[in-house]
């Protein structure tokens, strides 16, 4: 019995010791810790890899937690076990900023890196198609106005909505509610359309239909691409980078007369586009010296300008003037204020 007790105590000691050393490591860090949006994730990890390959810093660790999840972790506190940087596919909300302030995360710098468009795409075995945001909303909303009254969506085919549209069944593969792409699609298409329609009483409405016309295809955009290859009558909703990568198989519908092309998305002409951001915790800058190099590399012309590498993997760069503005704001570590976000 005695040996049994001894070995148990020994084991406990080993576990405790390993925890102890783990604690000690937490003060200064070589490795940057980044969390946040899955849309910014591929761009951030490209920059991270470049930093790891071309400098002596270790490659930063990047977790894809979604914009909201990232900001939640980021604003948890100023301790060294919280993330140094968070990526977001939308701007920080004032409520998130206030939470940051309450938890002692006061000195934040905001950086915009470019744009991302949301494509409404189909297999390129079809003729190219031009849709309006209103037509897309009418095809996907649960309740639509018919003769001024809201009714269950009666449209089965695109030609039911407008006779000039093809005689194809309405079937759209898209992301689930947890996705930033879905948020942006709802806001920029569905809510934008319904806000101005009398039948909805001036309120935004974004409930998608549940009769099988909208198919929740999960977080994996690759799956939607594969579905569209097989189901050529269907459409899919996903980020522009997936359209660009699969340009041999898919084509994007033009929306309100504008095709999803880099220039149109960058200039804001393409109506379904959003801006991409990251936020840095400046109180960590001294303890995590690699942060400055990472931020500088991310904001460099080499990465996010019109000639930058990230354009090659689907980032849509900002116009020259705006880029210069953001580069200088970030370089001087301008502190983010609540008034910036309103």
């Amino acid at each position: 019995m005695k040996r049994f007790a001894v070995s148990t105590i020994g084991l406990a000691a080993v576990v405790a010791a390993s925890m102890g050393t783990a604690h000690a490591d937490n003060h200064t860090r070589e490795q940057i810790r980044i969390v946040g949006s899955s849309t910014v994730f591929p761009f951030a990890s490209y920059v991270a890899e470049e930093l790891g390959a071309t400098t002596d810093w270790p490659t930063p660790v990047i977790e894809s937690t979604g914009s909201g999840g990232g900001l939640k972790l980021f604003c948890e506190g100023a301790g060294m076990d919280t993330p140094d940087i968070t990526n977001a596919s939308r701007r920080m909300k004032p409520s998130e900023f206030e939470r940051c302030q309450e938890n002692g995360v006061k000195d934040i710098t905001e950086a915009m890196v470019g744009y991302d468009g949301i494509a409404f795409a189909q297999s390129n075995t079809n003729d190219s198609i031009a849709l309006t945001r209103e037509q897309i909303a009418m095809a996907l909303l649960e309740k639509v106005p018919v003769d001024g009254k809201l009714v269950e969506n009666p449209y089965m085919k695109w030609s039911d909505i407008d006779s000039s549209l093809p005689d194809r069944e309405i079937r759209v593969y898209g992301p689930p509610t947890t996705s930033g792409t879905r948020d942006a699609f709802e806001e920029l298409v569905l809510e934008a359309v319904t806000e101005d329609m009398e039948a909805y009483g001036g309120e935004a409405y974004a409930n998608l239909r549940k009769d099988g016309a909208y198919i929740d295809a999960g977080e994996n955009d690759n799956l939607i691409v594969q579905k569209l290859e097989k189901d050529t009558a269907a459409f899919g909703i996903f980020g522009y980078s997936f359209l660009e990568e699969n340009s041999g198989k898919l084509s994007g519908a033009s929306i309100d007369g504008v095709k999803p092309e880099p220039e149109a998305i960058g200039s804001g002409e393409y109506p379904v586009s959003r801006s991409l951001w990251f936020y840095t915790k400046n109180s960590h800058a001294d303890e995590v010296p690699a942060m400055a190099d990472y931020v500088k590399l991310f904001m460099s012309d080499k990465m996010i300008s019109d000639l930058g590498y990230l354009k090659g993997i689907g980032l849509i760069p900002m116009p020259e003037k705006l880029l210069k503005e953001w580069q200088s704001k970030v370089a001087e570590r301008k502190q983010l204020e609540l008034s910036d976000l309103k």
Partner: protein
Amino acid sequence: MAQSLDDISRQLKKRHRRSARMKWLSMAALAAAGAFLVFFLVDMLVKGLPAFQQAYLHVEVDYSERASELPLAAVKADVRELVSRGYLRLIPNRMQKTPDLLGTQRMEWVLADDAVDQYLKGRKTGLKDKQITVVDRMAEAGNAELRFNTGFFTNGDSKLPEMAGLASAAIGSVLVLIVTMAFAFPVGVLTAVYLEEFASDNRFTRFLEININNLAAIPSILYGLLGLAIFINFFGAPRSSAVAGGLTLGLMTLPIIIITSQAALRAVPDSIRQGALAVGATRWQTVRDHVLPLSMPGMLTGSIIGMAQALGETAPLIIIGMIAYIPDAPTGFTDAATVLPAQIFTWAGMPESAYVERTAAGILVLLSVLISLNTLAVFLRKKFEHRW
């Protein structure tokens, strides 16, 4: 009521028919299960095998003054976009390390861009017509070829599909499993020994056993939440580290190890214990010198199966931050690390077709490791098994 021979033989026929029917039904079930397995394996092999080859190009590299500033200048304009950026971006560093390179030009086999790789494997790519003619010409002259993809086994993750490999994730998996086993094996075996050899059979121990059996069946993501609360938030283990991941998976494998160890202990006949006690050994001596050695093969088998399960687990690791972009191999238990199934999960979400290929190849590698582990478990059992 007496039955005639006719009645009996009719009944017999009926019973035989029923027996034959059940036999066919169970064989059909086996065939269906087998068909799914074969379909999965063939699909993975077809998709994954091309990833074990990688395109290389034979090009002239010009180590000029300019190339040390602008690495793109090191190769001719027509192949600039065909050569991997992962190769080009290292040129300035290499030139700094070996100054002799400056001013020389040499023909080198260099890693090709993933688009070239996919084109040579016969897939649709975004290559422009002009680039396709260049690649075709090079392939004809023997200057573009597919070789064994050593990078897949020596590189970490990468945003350049042609550079991406499994090495960091494999090292991460090994570190995690070391922690898992160092924690779960002794704790699990000692728990089983106490429950089987020392504890009296009362309500409390029966309650414990029901709970242990129950724990073996709860969804693994709950262990992730538990791991986050205990190891990271309370003990302060670093997020994404092998310590945090290994201990969390250790919690998950504990019930399996306890249950299999108990079964192994129960299989040791009581006559052995009685023999030892009869010559004056203490309870613990009996266990240590007689029962444990005899039940060890069974315990090891259970542990290996538990380890195989831990190796393939991702859900609890999402919560503790191991499903992330972590290309550097961890050098210690507290470094950020990722594991094989996490790597596969990350690749599965990438748009480039070269990643689709790598996803399947990663699955093939993971399956091979799991098959080896399970074979080892069967082998150990066969070799050391005692029959009474």
